[in-house]
C-alpha cells in the first residue's frame, strides 16, 4: 500500500513541478520551489542571464589599434644604405606628358616588384609641372601661347635591390618602356624627401626672428 501511495504522491509532485515550471514566467510572484527565478522582478530586464547573452559581440576580437592623432608630422622612413651585395633605397622616377601611359607604366613597375619579391617602400606622385609652348607669330614679333604641356611624375621607392637581381630588373624595365616616357633610377636622399613638402614662409620668418 505504502509504495503505491508514495509513487502516486511522487507522480503528483512531479506533475506539480512541471506545472509550476510552465507557469512561472507568466506569474508575477516568485515561487519557493524555484530559487532561480527569485532574482528578477517586473522592472528588471531578463536577458543578461540568458545563455545567449552577448552572442553578437565581435569588436573585442579585433586587434588593438592605437588611437590616431590627427596632426601627425610626416616621419621620414629609414633610408637604407648600400651593402656589399645590395643597393640601398632607390627611387625609380617615371615621367612623361601622357598621364595614362605614365601611370600605367608605374603600376606595371610596382606589380613587377611585387612579383619578384623586391620590397617597395613607397609609391607617390610629385606635383605636375606645366610647360607653356610659345610660338612666334608669323607677322609680328610677339609670341603667343600655342600649347600647354603637363609633365607628370611618378616615383616608386624600393627599399633594397639585390645586386644580382639588378641587371635583370633593369633589362625588363627598359624593354617595356613605352614611347614618350622617361625612366630614371637614382638614390634616395633626405633632400628628395624634404623637396616634397611645401615651404612655409611665415614659420620660417618666425624661426629666423627667434634665432636673432
Amino acid at each position, binding site marked *: 500500500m505504502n509504495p503505491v501511495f508514495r509513487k502516486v504522491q511522487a507522480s503528483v509532485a512531479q506533475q506539480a513541478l512541471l506545472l509550476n515550471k510552465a507557469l512561472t514566467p507568466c506569474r508575477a510572484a516568485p515561487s519557493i520551489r524555484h530559487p532561480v527565478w527569485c532574482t528578477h522582478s517586473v522592472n528588471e530586464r531578463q536577458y543578461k542571464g540568458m545563455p545567449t547573452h552577448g552572442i553578437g559581440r565581435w569588436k573585442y576580437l579585433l586587434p588593438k589599434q592605437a588611437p590616431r592623432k590627427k596632426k601627425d608630422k610626416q616621419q621620414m622612413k629609414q633610408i637604407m644604405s648600400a651593402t656589399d651585395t645590395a643597393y640601398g633605397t632607390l627611387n625609380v622616377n617615371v615621367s612623361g606628358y601622357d598621364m595614362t*601611359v605614365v601611370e600605367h607604366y608605374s603600376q606595371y613597375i610596382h606589380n613587377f616588384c611585387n612579383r619578384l619579391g623586391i620590397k617597395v617602400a613607397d609609391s607617390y606622385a610629385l606635383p605636375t609641372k606645366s610647360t607653356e609652348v610659345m610660338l612666334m607669330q608669323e607677322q609680328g614679333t610677339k609670341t603667343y601661347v600655342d600649347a600647354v604641356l603637363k609633365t607628370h611624375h611618378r616615383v616608386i621607392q624600393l627599399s633594397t635591390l639585390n*645586386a644580382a637581381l639588378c641587371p*635583370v630588373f633593369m633589362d625588363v624595365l627598359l624593354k617595356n618602356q613605352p614611347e614618350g616616357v*622617361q625612366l630614371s633610377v637614382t638614390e634616395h636622399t633626405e633632400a628628395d624627401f624634404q623637396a616634397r613638402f611645401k615651404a612655409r614662409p611665415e614659420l620660417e620668418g618666425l624661426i629666423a626672428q627667434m634665432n636673432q
Partner: protein
Amino acid sequence: MQQKKMAAPCGRMASRPLLQFLSRFSSSPVGNTGFRQFSSATVCRAAFQINEAAERANSPWTLVAAVYLQRLPVISADCSPIEQQFKQMLHQIELEKSVLSDHELRLLEDAERMSRKQADDYDSDEEDSHGDQEIMMAQDLEDIWEQKMKSFQPAPRVRADVDKDLTSAERCLADSLVLLAEQEVGDEKLWLLPQTRWQEGETLRQTAERALTSLPAGFKATFLGNAPCGVYKYKLPKAIRTENSIGTKVFFFKAILADGAPPKTKKAPFLWVKKSELQKYLKPAYMMKVERFILDL
C-alpha cells in the same frame, strides 16, 4: 575630339627616352654616386683577388668574360588582331562615356552664335562681349591644327630593306637585337658574343668592358651591374687537355647600347640579330646557355 598621338614614331624622337635615361644615369651627380659606390666595392674585391691569386693560379680553368650588348627596341611592337580589336572597343567605350571638353563646348557655342547672328531678329547689344572669340573662332583653330597635322610626316615604322641588312643597328625597330662578333677560338672562327680573357688584378666586369672596347667599331654601352648573368663552361677535347687547362669558363655581362650608332665599317664582322635568328649562328651547346638570359619581351 582630335587625338594627336604623342607616340609618333619619328626616328630621332623615339630614341629620346633612352637618351634621357642614359643621360640621367651618367650626368646627374646622384646617379654617379651610385656608380662610384659600385666601383669601390669591386676594388675591395680586386684586393681579395690579389691575395687569393696564389690559389687561383692553380685552377685549371681559363676565365673569359663576354659582353651581351643589346640594342633596345625603339618603337612598340604591333598589336595582334585580338589586341587591336580590344583596343578599338575600349576606345569606343571611353568615347561614349566621356564628357565634352572645353574646345568642343566652344565649338558648339560658336555654331549657336553664328546661327543666331544669321537669324533675322538679331540684336547685337544683347550679346555678351566676346572680343577675342569673334576674331578667332574655334572652328578656325581646328582648321589650323588640321593643316599642321597634314604637313607633319612621320618616319615609316618598318623599313623592309633595312630589316634585311643584318649588320645595321637600325633594323627591326620593334625588337631588341644582340651583337654577335666573329672571333677566333682555338683554331676556328666562330660567331659568338664578344669576349676576352681575364687578366690578373682586374674584375670580370672590367674584362667585359675591355672586350667591348677592343672591338674595332667603337660601341658605347652602359653596363647593367657587376653581377654576371650567365655562365658557359667549355671543356677542351681530351687530346689537348693538360693539367693546367681543362677548359674555359665564359661569364656574360649585360650591357645596353648607348645612343649614336657608330659609322658602319665595311667588312666589320658584326651582326645584329634577334633572338629567333640566333640559332643559325651559334653552336647548340653555347646557344642553350645563352638563350636562358636573353629576354625576348
